[in-house]
């Protein structure tokens, strides 16, 4: 446990939350959302209707953009081998890395999301569904993405390939997340999509951790 926390602290320190480098994915998230009104026009009715889906797609892409930081740098400078040999089970190592990554990159996006909803004229009840959905759904993005990142870790310029591998798996998150926002706008219960989203996140945590460690083990053997 002590080692696990130590690793978590190391990862967080390396990611340096809220420092300059982490602003890039966040800025990407914001600019992607801002692009949409230019594309579909500024009428409030349309923007309200598509706000939830737009913020979700942008968040998905922002997470995708940061996935290469999970294992790439550690593999390139050799510290991944050291971490694997440190005696900590590989599964826990993956878990620590995913948690740190989520805290450093996804949490800022979630904090920024209500502001984006405001820009897209999302009503208040929609904001609740949006933020709750992102909180319970975004771990699935990190964990599934971690498996993808582990698979392409030794490939040069694996970023585009990673998008192709991971984006189809993200579809359920997008569907349930956007549905929660829509349900709240139509005054329907949003608990169904939120519970499905939570279930998918838990399952993805399992698939992601096992898949990532399997991929890393094959990679380093």
């Amino acid at each position, binding site marked *: 446990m002590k080692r696990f926390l130590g690793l978590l602290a190391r990862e967080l320190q390396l990611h340096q939350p809220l420092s300059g480098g982490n602003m890039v994915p966040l800025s990407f998230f914001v600019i992607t959302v801002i692009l949409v009104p230019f594309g579909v026009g500024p009428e409030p009715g349309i923007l309200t209707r598509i706000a939830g889906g737009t913020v979700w797609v942008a968040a998905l892409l922002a997470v995708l953009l940061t996935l290469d930081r999970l294992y790439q740098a550690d593999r390139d400078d050799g510290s991944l081998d050291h971490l694997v040999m440190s005696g900590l089970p590989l599964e826990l190592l993956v878990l620590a890395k995913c948690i740190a990554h989520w805290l450093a990159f996804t949490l800022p996006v979630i904090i920024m999301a209500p502001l984006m909803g405001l820009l897209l004229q999302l009503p208040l009840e929609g904001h609740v569904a949006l933020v709750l959905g992102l909180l319970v759904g975004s771990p699935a993005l990190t964990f599934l993405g971690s498996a993808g990142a582990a698979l392409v870790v030794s490939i040069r310029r694996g970023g585009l390939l990673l998008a192709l591998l991971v984006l189809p798996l993200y579809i359920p998150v997008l*569907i349930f997340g956007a549905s929660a926002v829509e349900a709240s706008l139509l005054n329907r219960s949003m608990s169904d999509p939120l519970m499905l989203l939570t279930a998918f996140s838990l399952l993805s945590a399992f698939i992601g951790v096992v898949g990532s460690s399997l991929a890393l083990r094959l990679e380093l053997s």
Partner: protein
Amino acid sequence: MFGLANPRRFMSFTDYALPIATALTVVLTIVGLYWGLVLAPEDYQQGDTVRIMFVHVPAAWMAMACYLVIAVASLCSLIWRHPLADMAARQTAPVGAAFTALALITGSLWGAPMWGTWWVWDARLTSVLVLFFLYLGYMALWASFEDRARAARAAAVLALIGAINLPIIKFSVDWWNTLHQAASVSRFDGPAIHESILIPLLIMATAFKAYYAMVLMLRMRTDIMERKIDALRAGRAREQVV
């Protein structure tokens, strides 16, 4: 299955099996197409358009079957290091992707006169489209590694993750579809299929399976021979250096 793990035994087995599969493919395709396109009656609602189904439905079945083959072969390759399993998975992928594309294209051709549009975000269409991208990702991962053994293992892990997620994606797309779209599109599950259409459909489905078996054996044989050539070349290069 394990008897065929030896490439040489696989080659001598396919020496016999390949001509049989080829003959089956040719005969069944000719019979099935003639029955389906000429003998089978027109549908009272869909007219001649119903004949697209004789290609569309078997292609859609094969699209799913091929992904299942890839997943099972990947599992065998990861657990038993079965040397031909990863080859079977790799060589199935382009065939499966082609079946998926064929199902999408014929479905779109059918939809244009029947639904009045080339594409609807129907749950089944959407999940087949996602399946197509899973195939593309799988093939892209195979192509990205230089080391073959490494590529095989990474692709196997990806195939298994995809296989676990596929039912969930299917479920979520169904859910999304019922939520968003009022039932405006007439579905093809009206009355049960009459046997005058069912029999040629089953013949065509068997023909597609025979075709898949034929192409898979052909591709795997080619792959084995390519590996052999590579090994011979490497051997000769080593001799020259010495």
